[in-house]
């Protein structure tokens, strides 16, 4: 059990910090309300309008977020690869190239189908 002690301590510190931050905010923060604070939150100040009685809603924030995830995952794999590059064989280079090709295919699909056009 001894080797797990640092993890438990770290967990306790994290929990303490979270509770402290949430508890201190109402006590010290100023309370000034405006319209934007009470509105729906959608990545910016002005949310996209929802048509009366339902209908098609622009999902451009969603597309941007998805694109972010694509590149995020790309970095998650590329970073360790770059660090350990000299210890890896040609197989790893080919595997990463294949991975990049697949990512680019998804990217090309989104680009061609208008996923990056804002308006």
């Amino acid at each position, binding site marked *: 059990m001894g080797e797990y002690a640092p993890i438990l301590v770290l967990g306790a510190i994290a929990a303490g910090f979270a509770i402290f931050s949430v508890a201190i905010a109402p006590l010290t923060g100023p309370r000034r309300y405006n319209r934007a604070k009470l509105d729906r939150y959608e990545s910016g100040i002005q949310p996209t309008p929802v048509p009366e009685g339902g209908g098609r809603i622009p999902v451009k924030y969603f597309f941007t977020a998805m694109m972010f995830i694509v590149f995020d995952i790309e970095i998650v794999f590329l970073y360790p690869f770059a660090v350990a590059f000299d210890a*890896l064989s040609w197989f790893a280079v080919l595997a990463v190239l294949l991975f990049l090709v697949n990512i680019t295919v998804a990217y090309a699909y989104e680009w061609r189908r208008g996923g990056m056009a804002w308006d």
Partner: protein
Amino acid sequence: MNEIPAPVLEWDLIAPLMVLGAVAVVGVLLEAFVPRGPRFVVQASVAIGGVVAALGTTIWTATRTDVLDGDVLARGQVAAEGALSVDGPSLFTWGLLLVLALLSMLLFAERRLGGGLSAFTGRAADAPGSSGEAEATRHRLEHTEVFPLALFALLGMMLFAASTDLLMMFVALEVLSLPLYVLCGLARRRRLLSQEAALKYFLLGAFSSAFFLYGVALVYGYAGGFGLAEVADAVASRTQERPLLLAGVALLAVGLLFKVGAVPFHSWTPDVYQGAPTPVTAFMAAGTKAAAVVALARVLLVAFGGAEWDWQPAFWAVAALTMLVGAVGSIAQGDVKRMLAYSSIAHAGFILVGVVGATGGDGITSVSSALFYLTAYGVATIGAFAVVMLVRDASGESTDLDTWTGLGRRAPWLAGAFALFMLSFAGIPLTAGFIGKWGVFSAAWAGGLWPLVVLGVLVSAVAAFFYVRVVLTMFFDEPRPDGPLLAVPGAMTTVVVTVAAVATVALGVMPGPVLDLAQQAGAFVR
């Protein structure tokens, strides 16, 4: 710096997966760059060509596998660093899945029935019944993404059936499920029902995946490894921490039985089969079941074979319940697609009887009996759903069973084909279903499970009564004046119905070649 060794991949053994994956990626590119006009035809041709190419590669791979020395017949080897087992059952399942997918792709590509438009919605983002939807239909928009999506799902099914590593199996489970969730929501007609089906399938499917993953974690905690062979070694050697193992088996079984569609994890089946576009239902009913049964059998027999006295009683109960609920449930249905869904639940039960049956010996084994049953069930299912696509009225498919009254007088060939599939489901001699049932029951008999066999035969009789009643209504009752219009079948649907009917009769009259193939596939290789 230390060299990190490169993994060894047996390219010749995993070639079918590579071909199919490459074609699916090419499909995404085509979706991006081919202009809208020819896109549907291009996508359909590439998807069908890809499946045929993968089928050819599978046959080529199958000729390169060697029979192994040992007590039981087995061929093939573990590949890709212990992630996949390219053995006889895997290769048979790959071939079966590809044949079933080929038939389904023909149904996907059918455009004659909907006035030149496919069975899939023009623009999935439109609210059902909105002006946008009408506009999409007027401009003849079509979602051609369905072809790459189906190929990705097919790739997941093939991986799922061959995974011999629990993590690989989980990845395959997701690869097969996610495209299917999307495909279920894309029906052109009755879109609300279709979207409801997609959402239900997604929520319940995600839930069952979580169960599966928890099971993987517990089994890892017990065995210290993800490979099914490592788990088997741990089951054979470790005597303590048995509860951990049993909980892991139970959770894994929940995830797998959900995909198989066994009671009590079956409740999604009727709604999803009814709501999904009929070509997707055909693909899903035949393909997912085949992949999931083989994966379930592999996990149970390879990893937990040493603990079979612990899990077998639970599976006897599940098999018995599944047969009963499926057969009794199908009697109460008034909708053809729901009725076929309940019948697929009953068939899952019959297959499970075989899976928990005999595990070795000279006669028919549980694996080969399940493989043959899946073949017989798969072709009849795809054929039956192809017929459902053809019986239409002004608002699309007419799936109300009442409107099928007297169909045999108006379209004898079509109703005849449907009757043939029904008789095969019922297990009447001279159809494929009879040989399939005989196989699973004799495997269970050899394993000493005579109570299950007796129950299975009784349930078959109940189900047969129902299937025969459908046939009688079609042929011996007067047609209704407001009955459905029958669409002129396009070339693709005609081919599918014909092939399925011929295969159902051929497998029933001379099952020898395919039965031989299933027996030669041998046992799982660990």
